[in-house]
């Protein structure tokens, strides 16, 4: 049997985390290629429905990444993101989906290292959890 290779969707905000991801690339940092990055203008734009839909469509994990609190380019979008993720985690618990499949991280434009290590860590964790049951109907 081939090793389980998770599929992870990452929503990265345009102003910090996406630039952080870019920096990881231009600095030639190594991180697993399990991640599919979607650029959004702000983490506050990521509705709970986007995350659940990604899981429904078979993503094994979802990462939401935005600017550090206080640094959001739309003032408080990341606070909204935090609330939204919390709401979704409550729903996921009721649905019996493992909340560890969803992660919220603050990654600034200069934190290429943090981006790479976050992805590495997340991929390891998801590997332990195994495939998302919604993806294997």
């Amino acid at each position: 049997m081939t090793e389980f290779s998770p599929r992870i969707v990452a929503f990265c905000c345009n102003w910090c985390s996406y630039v952080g991801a870019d920096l990881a690339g231009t600095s030639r940092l190594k991180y697993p290629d399990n991640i599919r990055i979607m650029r959004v203008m702000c983490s506050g734009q990521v509705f709970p429905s986007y995350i659940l839909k990604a899981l429904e469509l078979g993503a094994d994990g979802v990462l939401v990444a935005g600017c550090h609190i206080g640094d959001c380019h739309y003032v408080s979008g990341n606070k909204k993101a935090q609330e939204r993720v919390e709401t979704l985690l409550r729903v996921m618990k009721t649905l019996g989906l493992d909340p560890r499949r969803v992660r919220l991280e603050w990654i600034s434009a200069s934190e290429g290292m943090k981006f790479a290590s976050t992805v590495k860590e997340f991929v390891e964790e998801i590997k332990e959890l195994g495939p998302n049951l919604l993806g294997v109907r």
Partner: protein
Amino acid sequence: MKQIIKRTKAYYCVECGKCSGSCPVARVNEGFSPRVIVERALSGMKGEIEGDRELWTCLTCEACTTKCPSTVKFSEFIRGMRSSAFNSGYTSRCSQGGLLHSIQRVQSYRDIVQNRLQWISDDLKTSTEGEVLYFTGCLPYFENLFSGFVNPLEIARSTVKILNKAGISPVVSPNERCCGHDLLWTGNVETFQKLARLNIEMIKESGASRIVTSCPECLRTLKLDYADFFEGTDIEIVHISEFISSLIKNNDIKLNRAGIMTYQDPCRLGRHMGIYDAPREVIKSMGELVEMNKNREESSCCGVSAWATCEGNSKLMQIERLIEAKSTGADMLVTSCPKCLIHFRCAVHNQIPVEKEKVDIPVVDLTVAACRALAGE
């Protein structure tokens, strides 16, 4: 489309416009006209209807159905057209970004193990097998999403308390799934059927011969839309308002006076299922009932159905209805549908376009009100 037209008798339409005249959406949205939709269908414009965003605006509230002189079943027609649109790749403009539909679809996976019974506190008696099953519906999820301004699970607790009071320890199953109402009414028939099959399995395993629901949509769905799946079984399905009113009639419970109340007929309970009297009897046994101008068959909808299309116009309908409720002078607006409750509360939760005094009337679920009024509690 021809079949849908035939099944819903749309070809009898004489373009009288009674539907548009009685439609709560048409009143606030100039672009919406049930008459025009039927007219288009009759001239074969399938693509135009499927692609029209207004297809998802209808509340399927059946206000027009009760008025139509040609007995066209318009909301059934909309349901049929939505399923055909869904199959062509169109989807509803969902409120909450589609989150609720997503939650409902996830429940159609056989292997998920939900944690939906967290609300059962020690003072409530429930069973795993038995004659009566309480179908809780989406209440645990509503609590997850809307606890900022409503307590949906209080409805579940009140229901069980009242059942306990009548000596019943109902089955409440962790394996229950969403009844599928919203998906069925937004065109996703396939997932609806999956949910239905899983629920039927769960119900059969419980050994129940009677199901109580606290949601009119579950009631309608289990009673009418599950009929084919239930074939060959003899299961009675009742709404909690019918159950409480029979308890009162038999003197099994007594309710204390709880004030002056006005009542919102939920579309599914009223026009869809014809249940108008039971909730009113419950109200009369715990207080005085003052009717709004529009009541019973004439009642206006709470503005959103099946989590399809929540927009400015929905809020207008809600505010209008709340003003009407407030002007009756009642102490509270009672409804017997969790969604009516959520929609009305949501409408006044943030900014409102009118003075607050005009709409500030508490909205209370019938079962919760009855449970609070239980004598000797």
